[in-house]
């Protein structure tokens, strides 16, 4: 009798993923909050990993009828090393049901944070959800597939437009040589015999005649070899290869004057993250330049960009000027795809806004692939907005602006950009 052994290792991989999905669905609120906290802590380039999420234990407990503390309890314990019958001892302070000496329960039951790790996909899913991305875009971003068609040798079948003449003729010539070879050898031999027959005095007429007929016959056979045969046809072959092989630079411009509070900066951060994510799908190498400005602009690292606070007025053009300068110094070659993203609360020194528009229209937009501006404000549009309005009309596909109150408003800024990539 042999036992039945079943190898289940290949079955039902990820069987748990449904229950896991249910869990995430159920605690979407808490998880969303945790993701928001995580985004605040993350670098904008750090979107490739999952995230550890903590949910308060009480939220996910599964209640049942239980006895609480109190009443009369009797427990039997092992390992008696000091007690005799009738011994009394004071209750352990923790309120546990146990013994006199130092057994404190290490943690309260079930009330710790429930910690688990979201996968990258789940993390992005929630991130996208908040940004209200259309599904098509979500799929586009989460997927890594940008293809380029490139040559890959030759094939024997294809469409007529792809026929490669040189290859075809070379093949045909080779075939003719190969097939005609034996004929040529015999022909040369016969030719030699004919000459020797003709050299004889008197010529052997009968022999000459036979040789000449044979030569004619061979020549006819050799001529019958087709000049070109369907077999010779060669077509250029092209295949699709994944291709994220260019480089891009992304400029993040942000107003850090006193009126930009922490909430607005977090919103701006999502805006930059989304652009980064988009670029990341399309370019192999991305550099990010952070420019912050109030009355004057400076290039800073990411940490300073999001976390330091300045006060004072606002001159937006200073940042644009710095951007132009950095482009000409470091990213002037055509190898760089340049993207600009500007976030501000719209406040600008009045005389400066026309300057900004001019700078954008003349110096920046001709150089960049896309420039997006968000104004994070709930009130009336500010003067910069009005100035930029003109650009949005004239520079269609290149420039986009949006006024933002919540994260879901961010996506429309990029709508044009994503649409372009999706077709």
């Amino acid at each position, binding site marked *: 009798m042999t036992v039945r052994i079943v190898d289940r290792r290949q079955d039902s991989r990820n069987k748990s993923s449904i229950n*896991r999905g249910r*869990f995430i669905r159920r605690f979407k609120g808490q998880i969303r909050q945790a993701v928001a906290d995580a985004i605040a802590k993350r670098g904008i380039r750090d979107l490739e990993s999952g995230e550890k999420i903590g949910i308060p234990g009480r939220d996910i407990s*599964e209640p049942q*009828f*239980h006895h609480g503390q109190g009443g009369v309890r009797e427990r039997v314990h092992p390992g008696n090393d000091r*007690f005799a019958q009738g011994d*009394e001892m004071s209750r352990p302070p923790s309120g546990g049901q*146990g013994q006199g000496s130092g057994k404190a329960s290490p943690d309260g039951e079930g009330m710790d944070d429930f910690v688990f790790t979201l996968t990258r996909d789940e993390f992005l899913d929630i991130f996208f959800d908040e940004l209200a991305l259309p599904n098509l875009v979500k799929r586009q971003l989460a997927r890594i597939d940008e293809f380029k068609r490139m040559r890959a040798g030759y094939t024997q079948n294809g469409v007529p437009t792809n026929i490669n003449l040189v290859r075809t003729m070379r093949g045909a010539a080779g075939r003719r040589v190969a097939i005609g070879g034996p004929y040529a050898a015999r022909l040369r031999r016969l030719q030699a015999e004919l000459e020797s027959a003709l050299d004889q005095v008197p010529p052997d007429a009968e022999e000459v005649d036979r040789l000449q007929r044979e030569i004619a016959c061979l020549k006819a056979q050799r001529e019958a070899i087709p000049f070109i045969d369907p077999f010779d046809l060669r077509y250029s072959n092209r295949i699709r290869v994944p291709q994220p092989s260019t480089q891009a630079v992304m400029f993040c411009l942000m107003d850090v004057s006193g009126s930009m509070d922490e909430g607005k900066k977090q919103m701006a951060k999502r805006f930059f993250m989304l652009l980064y994510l988009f670029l990341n799908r399309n370019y192999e190498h991305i550099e990010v330049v952070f420019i912050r400005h109030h009355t004057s602009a400076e290039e800073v690292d990411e940490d300073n960009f999001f976390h330091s606070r300045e006060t004072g007025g606002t001159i937006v053009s200073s940042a644009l000027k710095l951007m132009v300068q950095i482009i000409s110094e470091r990213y002037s070659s055509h190898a760089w795809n340049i993207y600009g993203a500007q976030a501000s609360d719209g406040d600008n020194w009045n005389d400066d806004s026309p300057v900004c528009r001019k700078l954008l229209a003349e110096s920046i937009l001709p150089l960049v692939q896309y420039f997006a501006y968000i104004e994070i404000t709930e009130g009336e549009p500010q003067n910069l907005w009005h100035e930029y309005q003109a650009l949005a009309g004239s520079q269609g596909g290149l420039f986009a602006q949006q006024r933002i109150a919540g994260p879901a408003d961010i996506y429309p800024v990029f709508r044009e950009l994503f649409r372009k990539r999706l077709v």
Partner: protein
Amino acid sequence: MTKKRSQLIAEGSDWTLEAIAKYDAEIGRIARNYGLDCYRHQLEIITAEQMMDAYAAIGMPVYYHHWSFGKHFLETENRYKRGQMGLAYEIVINSDPCIAYLMEENTLTMQALVIAHAAYGHNSFFKGNHMFKQWTSADAIVDYLVFARNYIAECEERHGVDAVESLIDACHALSNLGVDRYKRSPPLSLLKEKARQQEREAYLQAQVNDLWRTLPRRDLVVEEAEERRFPAEPEENLLYFVEKNAPLLEPWQREVIRIVRKIGQYFYPQRQTQVMNEGWATFWHYTLLNTLYDEGKVNDGFMLEFLQSHTNVIYQPPYNSNWYSGINPYALGFAMWQDIRRICERPDDEDREWFPDIAGSDWRETFDFAMRNFKDESFIAQYLSPRLMREFRLFAVLDDDSKPNLKVDAIHNTQGYRTLRQKLAEQYNLGSSDPNIQVWNVDLRGDRALTLRHFAHQRRPLADSSLVVLEHMASLWGFNVRLEHQALNGDWVLLAERKTERRRRA
């Protein structure tokens, strides 16, 4: 040594399917020699992830979907990945054929251990013990689980995931009070379930209408009817009561409640025989593998690896250790079965005095009797010997919240043995560890409120989470639910009430 080597079943620590089959054949042969009566069994090789998955679904090969299983999975995965716990080496399912899972990470020795422990130890216990015989039908459980999963998936499609989820939440909250303790539930069978399900839906709905039938006749009813309680006798199976009597539930909701209830019932014997069952399986893997060693079928390396994990499993930390978390059922169970064998084979005077029936008897017969006819509570009350109490150095502590101090009631000495044994047995009595809450009355003529009564045991109050559970009860019942308990003077007082604003959906 060189001669013995030729008899070895297999060598090395990596397992192959052939080696597992050979071990199984050998272990099976020895088990039959010992007279173990088992279901047929099937070994399934699974990955660690699948093992965690099975954990989350309380060991079941198929199970319906619910977020709480996702939570348990994440919990297990986290702890496993952080190295805080090893996975159980085995999970075994009480079904016919009995299914034992072998994890692919295990070494060959561990696989042999699991086969002996699960496929022969637990398996024979499932087949023989009266609790399992009475409460579960091994031949039908897998079919029933398939039925349950498909049915619930269908409900999700028809009524939405949220509706089903909150229903199952409520059922889970009440599941430990959703078992029948005293009467046998009818056997589960896929065919019968399917055939009867339609019939049951119609019938149940008709039954429920009885609750309402009294309404139009209101003016005719005389006072004595006011006295009549519904149900006539208190009902301790809350889920059962709700399934049969909640007025507003849809037929599919009753069916889902029934599914959770049935599956809960299926696990009821496991909760009551933990010490016996684990001890039994541990005893048999120990005995079977030692016999293999005596026959020269396995080498010293095998035994060292086996003993290392065996001793880990049966370690009992003392009460003042950091690792102490109650009595280890493996340790107590294994020690008791070993001790019973000792009493049979090498009794001393104390044993003859305490266990005159079994001292010196045939150990296999005694084992068989004990395995078949007891559960933890009675098993301990019957077989825990003074010698074992001394070995474990057991002592009982009384915690009475009306007294300022804890008191040691009994220790492992002559005066204490009986008390100690009785108290330890009581500790395994589910009847006193689960709160006793019963359906007392439904206000048929008034607001249809349901009254539950908590019969306190040893003055133990209910934990705060009870209020949340009451919420779930109210959502199932569809009307107000009250929870009463008995005050010190004997009066019944209202402990909590949950109001429901539920309207029947059009």
